[in-house]
């Protein structure tokens, strides 16, 4: 890694003020560090200063009541996965968090870090490759090896968003709170992420001097079932080839409402309104669930090596819907 000075955060004002002194990359925040230190070791990022957020009090707590969850951005992925209320009532979130990486990484990685993590794309992570996302001319995945890249929403940068927790939160209708020098603002987790067509250089709407501080998750309806299905090449650690976060409000095996968000197939967690529409108000059968899957991927634009993701995504959606119907 390049040298950097390391500063403990004392308050949100101090943090946003330090971040405001420069643009992207000069001063960066570090929470768990499991993604950021990886980037520093590969010289993808070379900040002069790291601000340690872990010294900010109270930002790692999880609290739950009848109306929902409040999770501090510094809560670890492990804490989220093991929280009883989350395991019992927000199953998709517990499963997503439990599927992240390895125990070592879950113990240290934070919610904020998981949402804000950068792509795993092997062109992006290669210091010598001047890819489009890093300010260059070309997305190398287009003509290159695209087995792990996007089939939806890619143009012009075909990374996939690596987070498991993000699709789960969006499926649960979560929102998050951002703090900047002007104060705080709240938005849905869905709105937090952006597609490359809007901004090829970043994956979310954060300004350089803003940080995520908290996520709020409304309590699912009493008749809601939720799952996180993650297709991988090896058991762990492995990022998703494709994943489905599904929340299904069921009446018997009729789906009254569904929230289906895909991971590993698009540059942002991908809310499939098409799949949701195909299931809403329907009795879920094999063919209904398959149709939902087909609808979800009908506009997919695979690259040279990732057409299999189209089939895989369709099948995962079908599987999730069938699980809801049981």
């Amino acid at each position: 890694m390049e040298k950097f000075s390391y500063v403990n955060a004392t308050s949100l004002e101090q943090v946003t003020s330090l971040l405001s002194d420069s643009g992207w990359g000069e001063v960066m925040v570090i929470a768990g560090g499991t993604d950021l230190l990886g980037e520093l070791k590969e010289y993808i990022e070379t900040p002069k200063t790291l601000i340690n957020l872990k010294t900010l009090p109270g930002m790692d707590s999880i609290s739950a009541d009848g109306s929902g969850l409040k999770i501090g951005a510094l809560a670890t992925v492990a804490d989220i996965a093991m929280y009883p209320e989350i395991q019992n009532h927000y199953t998709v979130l517990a499963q997503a968090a439990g599927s992240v990486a390895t125990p070592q990484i879950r113990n240290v990685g934070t919610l904020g870090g998981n949402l804000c993590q950068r792509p795993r794309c092997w062109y992006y992570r290669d210091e010598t490759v001047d890819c489009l996302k890093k300010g260059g001319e070309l997305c190398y995945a287009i003509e290159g090896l695209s087995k792990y890249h996007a089939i939806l929403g890619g143009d012009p940068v075909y990374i996939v968003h690596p987070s498991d927790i993000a699709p789960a939160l969006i499926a649960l209708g979560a929102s998050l709170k951002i703090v900047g020098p002007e104060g705080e603002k709240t938005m849905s987790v869905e709105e937090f992420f952006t597609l490359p067509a809007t901004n090829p250089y970043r994956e979310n709407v954060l300004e350089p001097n803003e940080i995520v501080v908290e996520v709020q998750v409304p309590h699912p309806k009493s008749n809601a079932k939720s799952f996180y299905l993650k297709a991988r090449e090896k058991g762990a650690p492995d990022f998703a080839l494709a994943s489905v976060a599904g929340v299904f409000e069921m009446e018997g095996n009729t789906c009254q409402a569904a929230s289906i968000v895909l991971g590993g197939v698009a540059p942002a967690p991908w809310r499939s309104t098409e799949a949701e529409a195909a299931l809403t108000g329907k009795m879920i059968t094999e063919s209904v669930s398959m149709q939902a899957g087909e609808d979800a991927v009908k506009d997919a634009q695979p690259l040279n090596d990732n057409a299999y993701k189209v089939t895989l995504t369709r099948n995962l959606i079908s599987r999730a819907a069938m699980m809801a119907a049981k």
Partner: protein
Amino acid sequence: MAIKSHVQTTINGETVEFLCESRQSLLEVLRDELHLTGAKEGCNNGNCGACSVILDGRLVNSCLVLGVETEGKSVETIEGLAAPDKLHPIQDAFLENAALQCGICTPGFIMSTKALLDSNPNPTEHEIRYWLAGNLCRCTGYDKIVRAVQDAAKASA
């Protein structure tokens, strides 16, 4: 001149002080500054678990923790496991089950096992695989490691 921070931490129950640059990982500090070479460098970015240590009671990859971040915390490494006169039951179980060959992954596996058994004294086989999924071994094929953990659990019961 490199700017170094002074860090005071507890390692295996003893207060330890060291100087390090902010960019030095805990793994580098343990191995190069403190000469505690039990934790190993296998990949240096969190994929193999050979560097696993326990930090404030939680299993972590020491290659992804900065040395300066251990200020005021407590670190357990493989060197602290055995009593002066006898091995820890986990260490015995690994030996008896032939759960090691070249042995380079072994300290990491033993620390992961300790972290597991400290919180779950009676894990199922599936749980053992799940909680040891962050440790890679190229020699043994894992089967004997899983059995060693099962035996260690029984012995500690």
